[in-house]
């Protein structure tokens, strides 16, 4: 790891704090992931990725920059990666999953801001995220009010922030807004990369991202098996790494795991005993290294069988249609694909409720755990309808509201254990 010291210094990281963060992530990873039994062999790839989370991948990004490629940092699944790849740039999800630098963040945003937003500020202010420092452009998307207003302040601490507006209703006007925003974004990318969008490069971008989605959806589908061949933690990790890994390598690695899991299923092998209670997670995204809830679930005798969240199927479901002959038509196809994302900032958001039910059925979930971050109004408000809707149909729901702190683990454990007891009868 010491090999990277120079690289991290050159990016302006605070080496001492950064070391502490890496040690903590390493230790947590050891406790949460490496202690699991009977993991698929293919997960070794992800163990390696996490061990090099701020090392090799950053080196790859910096090497790519040296060749003239641009790095685009994102915080949201609404940023169309297809377009980023088409202009030969690289898309990376930025760090926002740990309680870090919150005090410094509170100089810019109020205390009652959700952990995800605070964390984005914290990582930048504490100078511990090499991804942020490696970016040429950071996309701030107007999804929830929290993020929208926080980006105004974020603009004061980074000098490469680009704001993208996002509609709030699935209307014709909403779609037109998304189209115009994606066009503007494409123009911006063309400007900073000097690469023009063509039918060819856009189709290639679509193909690469679709392949990544197909692989992660293939992985998801294998979890319908009983016993489940892979832990929810491991799949969540894959969904988190999805945002910043080299897409082709990621796709190949996930497909290799799927091959292995298919053999497991054939032999009736699983990571948990057959008929262990099955839980579907739904709600706010869980950015790396936020593994708190699935870790409690899976150390309490139940298994997570799906994630209806941005770091899960809300982000990866639905492919982009590449059947078109002009750049504008391809952009339309991209807009059509992203416009279906059922983020809680949309009103109404009926498709999300349907998607949760559909996933619960498909993955044979015994219950749904709805996870909202404290102060995340869109998901906290939807949580109430999710619970009412699903309970009415006989699907047990546990609503959990938490943040990135570790202090409430005891209370969460009590609730989650009691929920699992309820699912067992």
């Amino acid at each position, binding site marked *: 790891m010491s090999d990277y010291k120079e690289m991290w210094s050159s990016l302006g990281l605070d080496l001492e704090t950064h070391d502490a963060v890496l040690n903590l992530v390493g230790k947590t990873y050891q406790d949460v992931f490496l202690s699991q039994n009977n993991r698929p062999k293919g997960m070794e790839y992800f163990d390696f990725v996490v061990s090099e989370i701020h090392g090799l991948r950053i080196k790859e990004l910096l090497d790519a920059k040296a060749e003239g490629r641009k790095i685009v940092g994102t915080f949201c699944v609404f940023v169309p990666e297809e377009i980023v790849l088409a202009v030969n740039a690289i898309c990376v999800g930025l760090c926002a999953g740990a309680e870090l630098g919150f005090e410094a963040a509170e100089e810019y945003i109020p205390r009652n801001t959700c952990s995800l937003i605070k964390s984005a500020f914290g990582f930048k202010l504490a100078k511990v995220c090499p991804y942020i420092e490696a970016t040429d452009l950071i996309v701030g998307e107007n999804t929830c009010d929290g993020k929208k207003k926080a980006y105004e302040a974020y603009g004061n601490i980074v000098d490469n922030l680009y704001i993208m507006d996002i509609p709030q209703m699935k209307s014709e006007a909403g779609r037109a807004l998304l189209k115009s925003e994606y066009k503007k974004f494409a123009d911006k990318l063309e400007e900073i990369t000097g690469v023009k969008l063509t039918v060819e490069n856009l189709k290639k971008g679509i193909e690469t991202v679709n392949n990544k989605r197909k692989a992660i959806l293939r992985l998801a589908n294998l979890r319908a098996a009983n016993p489940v061949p892979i832990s929810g933690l491991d799949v969540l990790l894959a969904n988190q790494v999805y945002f910043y890994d080299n897409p082709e390598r990621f796709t190949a690695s996930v497909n290799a795991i799927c091959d292995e899991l298919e053999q497991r299923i054939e032999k009736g092998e699983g990571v948990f005993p057959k008929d262990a209670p099955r839980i579907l997670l739904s709600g706010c995204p869980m950015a790396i290294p936020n593994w708190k809830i699935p870790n409690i679930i899976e150390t309490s005798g139940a298994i997570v069988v799906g994630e209806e969240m941005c770091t899960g199927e809300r982000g990866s479901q639905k492919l982009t249609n590449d059947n078109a002959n002009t750049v504008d038509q391809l952009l339309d196809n991209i807009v059509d694909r992203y416009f279906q994302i059922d983020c809680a900032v949309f009103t109404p958001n009926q498709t999300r409720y349907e998607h949760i039910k559909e996933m619960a059925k498909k993955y044979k979930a015994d219950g749904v755990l709805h996870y909202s971050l404290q102060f995340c109004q869109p998901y906290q408000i939807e949580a109430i309808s999710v619970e009412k809707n699903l*309970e009415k149909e006989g699907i*047990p729901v546990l609503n959990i*509201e938490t943040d990135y702190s570790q*202090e*409430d683990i*005891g*209370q969460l454990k*009590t*609730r989650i*254990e*009691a929920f699992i*007891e*309820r699912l067992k*009868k």
Partner: protein
Amino acid sequence: MISAGIDIGSRTIKVVLLENNNIIFSKVIDNSFNPIETCRSVLNGHPYNTITSTGYGRHLFADYFQSEVISEIKAFSIGIHHVLPNARTILDIGGQDTKAIAIDENGAVRKFEMNDKCAAGTGRFLEIMAMALRFSLDEFGYQALSTNESVNINSMCAVFAESEIISMLAKGEDRSKIARGIYFSVIKKSMAILKRVGLQKEIAFAGGGAKSIALKTLMEEVYQQPVFVPENPQIMGALGCALYSQSKLLANNPR
């Protein structure tokens, strides 16, 4: 065969021993900085065949005593169902948690809700408020019932509520009215989580909080219906555990 149950709470530890469905021993003692030692001393001289633990120390206890582990929610449901078979909604006000549980006619959990991660609405909240008013717990309740008027307490946080009360005292507000107001604020908070689980009749009230006659009396006034408190409300979790142990023993040793 003796089956045991232990509920290791944040404030107190509760133990129940059962033989042929009869309680042959029960005890409530204050928890300490060393919960395992406290458990050891309370169990000393009371042999049992099997034990089940619950409460925040349930896993720690299992590491030392090889117990079965169940959640407080399940433990209270089993315990209450045993002593009050008509109960369909349980309110448990403990030291650091308040829980509302909906159970079916067999005592199985249908739904549950817990307070947020703060002391508001818990037994500890009442203790802190009594101290702020310089009342003993008993007198605190007695005073709250001694008047028909109450002062509205706005702060839900224990720390802020304490300073709110101190400024009321400084303004010369009557202590009894403040005490009554504090009880109402706890009841309002509990009403919110009870409503979320459905509030079906009959309502059972347990946990250390249920030892307060004032809380029960004022609750009935607010809910406009009777609230049933078992004879020894604090041991319901431990009783539930002992009953769970007993069912395990019976399953493993059929007669």
